[in-house]
Each structure stands twice: as structure tokens, then as C-alpha cells.
């Protein structure tokens, strides 16, 4: 595998550090006049999600990590694993609870999601930024109520619970931001 020098570090670059795949978050170059130059680098451990800071002498290198993002279709959950399929090669991969994590509540069968693969195996699952899901449970809607009113919880078909305006009722299809869990509006049918 290739390796990268500190001057090539860019945010988003995937590198190996202490045996774990990491994504570079930030790289700051610090140099005192004619002295030794350093790079203060913030990295996110893709396995644990932990972000930490490490200081390198400029010119030090890290090995590139075999991490790729791939668009795949979510098929089904068998109770233990979530199964995904590549839409063209029909190659299938399974991801466990730890990998899918919070993304699980946004996964609707047949939706296309992003799988982050490390050495060919799923490392993380990222749902689309916006999804449209049906409300399966919420308190009855109030007639004449407008968007200015309060909010109430609504359970969506995938199990996610979001705060919605009072006029929303069961059967409505909502547009939701998966990064914040925020209600964006009713989807036009």
C-alpha cells in the first residue's frame, strides 16, 4: 500500500495509525523560523469513532488505509446482520450491529446507502442525508393546526422517532434529515 507524507495529508484522507484505519480531520503546519517543522494532525479512528490529536515531525509518513466508500442497496435484516447488495455486481455483504449502529433506524429495504469498507469488509454504514419515511404511530392530528404550533413525537416505519408538528398524522410520508434527526416537511406524493 502507498504511504503519505505529512505535507500530503488532507482532510478526508484515510491512513493507518497504530493498526487502525483513520480519517484525517485536520492538518496544521507549525514551523518556528529556521527550526524543526511539525504537523499537528487531528484524526478520527474509523473503528471507534474517537477523534484525537497527534503531532508529527514534518516529513514523517503514514501508510494509506484500504478504505473505500461504496453505494450499496440495503436488502434486509435477519435479526443479527444487515445485508447489503452492490446494485451492479450483485455482490452481497453483511454488517453487524456495531457497524450499522445508529444508521439502523433510517434503513428502509431497497434504499441505497453508503458503506465504508475497510479491506473489503463493512466498517460503517451512512444513510442518505435525507430520507422519506411513513409515519406508523403518532397522536391524532389536530384540524386547523399550522406549522407554528408545538411538536409531538412520531414513530416512522423504520423505528426512528422524530419530533413533528401537531398536524402530522399516521400514514403521512415525511422528509427527514438523518444527520440531525430533524423533520423537514411532508413529502409530496
Amino acid at each position, binding site marked *: 500500500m502507498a504511504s503519505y507524507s505529512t*505535507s500530503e495529508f488532507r482532510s478526508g484522507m484515510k491512513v493507518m495509525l497504530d493498526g487502525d484505519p483513520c480519517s484525517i480531520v485536520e492538518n*496544521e*503546519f*507549525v*514551523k*518556528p*523560523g*529556521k*527550526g*524543526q*517543522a*511539525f504537523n*499537528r494532525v487531528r484524526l478520527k479512528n474509523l473503528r471507534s469513532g474517537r477523534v*484525537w*490529536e*497527534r*503531532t*508529527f*515531525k*514534518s*516529513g*514523517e509518513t503514514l501508510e494509506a488505509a484500504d478504505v473505500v466508500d461504496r453505494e450499496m442497496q440495503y436488502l434486509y435484516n435477519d435479526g443479527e446482520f444487515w445485508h447489503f447488495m452492490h446494485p451492479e455486481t450483485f455482490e452481497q455483504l453483511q454488517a453487524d450491529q456495531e457497524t450499522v449502529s445508529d444508521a439502523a433506524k433510517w434503513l428502509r429495504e431497497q434504499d441505497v446507502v453508503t458503506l465504508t469498507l475497510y479491506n473489503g469488509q463493512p466498517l460503517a454504514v451512512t444513510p442518505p442525508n435525507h430520507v422519506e419515511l411513513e409515519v406508523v404511530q403518532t397522536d391524532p392530528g389536530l384540524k386547523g393546526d399550522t406549522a407554528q404550533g408545538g411538536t409531538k413525537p412520531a414513530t416512522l416505519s423504520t423505528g426512528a422517532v422524530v419530533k413533528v408538528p401537531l398536524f402530522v398524522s399516521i400514514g403521512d410520508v415525511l422528509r427527514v434529515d438523518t444527520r440531525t434527526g430533524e423533520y423537514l416537511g411532508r413529502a409530496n406524493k
Partner: protein
Amino acid sequence: MFHPSASLDLLQKRAQLLQQLRAFFFARQIMEVDVPALGQNTVTDVHLEPLQVLDTGYLQTSPEYFMKRLLAAGSGSIYYLGKAYRRDESGRRHRAEFTLLEWYSVGLDDRELMAQMTELFALLAPATDIRRRSYGEAFQTLLGLCPHRASLAELQALIAARLELHSPLDNKSACLDLLFSFCVEPQLGPGITFICDYPAEQCAWRAWIRMRKGCRWRGVSRCIGTAWSWPTAIGSCAVRTSNAGALKMIREFAPPLG
């Protein structure tokens, strides 16, 4: 239509700044010298990487050598205000190409040169708070260790307690560079702090000075400005005053360079 990344207002301020700098030196009879940016040779500093130009030579990392040659030839006080180039330097405060002001005031020692810089800063940024601290005092006060007497092991232990380092540093000067840049400089406060009386390891001229016994030498000081930000478009501007004393020595003892 082309849209510059700097606003026209900022470009105007930059032009004004360059103008003020030239006026300052003109008023003090310090001559501007426009030395080559492209030379056949380059520096031997460990931590400076030059940009090489195919078949031609090197873009200069600073005008230092050309200027010192002029000084040795009897130019009197001189300054350079122009581009310098350093490979692999890229960051919030660094660019491979940057505008550098370097000057030599003949006859001034390091304290007098700091006073001259204070005049310059007071002119450019009138309301700025300017003070002076010695390297040893700032380091001792903020980190609790004397940088002059500390051993390599003590410095390494101090680093380990404060920073996560990818691989250990094996010389005292690099340890001091790290601790000063990451742990002292950020705590110097707003305004400008002159740092003087650097440890011997931090002095590029030391070996040379040692060779010449009997010359009266008050120590090399580097002065750095901190939290005194030029508008972004101006880029980094290194203010270097390290060689006032060396200059005296060149005049009195040294043969012409090169």
C-alpha cells in the same frame, strides 16, 4: 470575470503597508536592495528546503546570503522587501511563496535592533501592546523548566506529559522547538512579544561565533511577533532580526563572504 480571493479593500491595505515599510526605512537611510530571488546556490540549514528550478539553480529561501555579501562589501544598512520561497511549507501561516522583510542596521546590537523594530510596529499598528521577555524566563514561567539547563530526558518527559508525539525527538533543539511553538507561544497573550536570549542550541550562528575568540558577543536573539496578524492576503511575513550582532562581527572581523 476574474474575482480575486482577497477583497480590493484588503489589497489596498496591503499596498499601503508596503508603502509604509519603505517610507520607514527611507527615513532612516536604510537602503533597499533588490537581490536575486534565483541563485546558483542555496542554504545549508537543516530545516529549510529550497525550491529547485530546473537547470538554473534555486529560488532563495531568504535574501540573507546576498545581503550579507553586500554588508561585507561595505553597503551600510540595507533592507529587502520581496518574495522568498521555501518548499513544503504550507499552512495557515505558511506558504511556499511569501513576502519577507529582512533588514540589517549597521552598528546596532540586538537590544537596539529590538527598539528599532518596536518603532516600526508602533508605526504600523499604533495601538498594539509590545513587550519583551527572555526565552528562559517565558519558558520557565509557563512550563516550569529552565530551557538552558534542562537535559534532553527532562524535555522529552515534559513533551510526553503534554502532547501525543508520533515518534520521539532525539535532540534538544527539536524538543525546544516543539515545546516553544505548541506550549509557550500560544500563551504569550495578545499584542507583540519579543523573545530574546535564545538557548545556545537554537542559534544558527553559534558554531561560527565560537570559532572567533575575543569578539565581544552579546548573544543572538531571534524576535518573533505573536498574535499580531497581518491581514490574510499579506501572507506570512517573517521578521528576522537575528543577525544584528553578527553583522557587527562581519564588519569588524570577517572577510567578505563568497
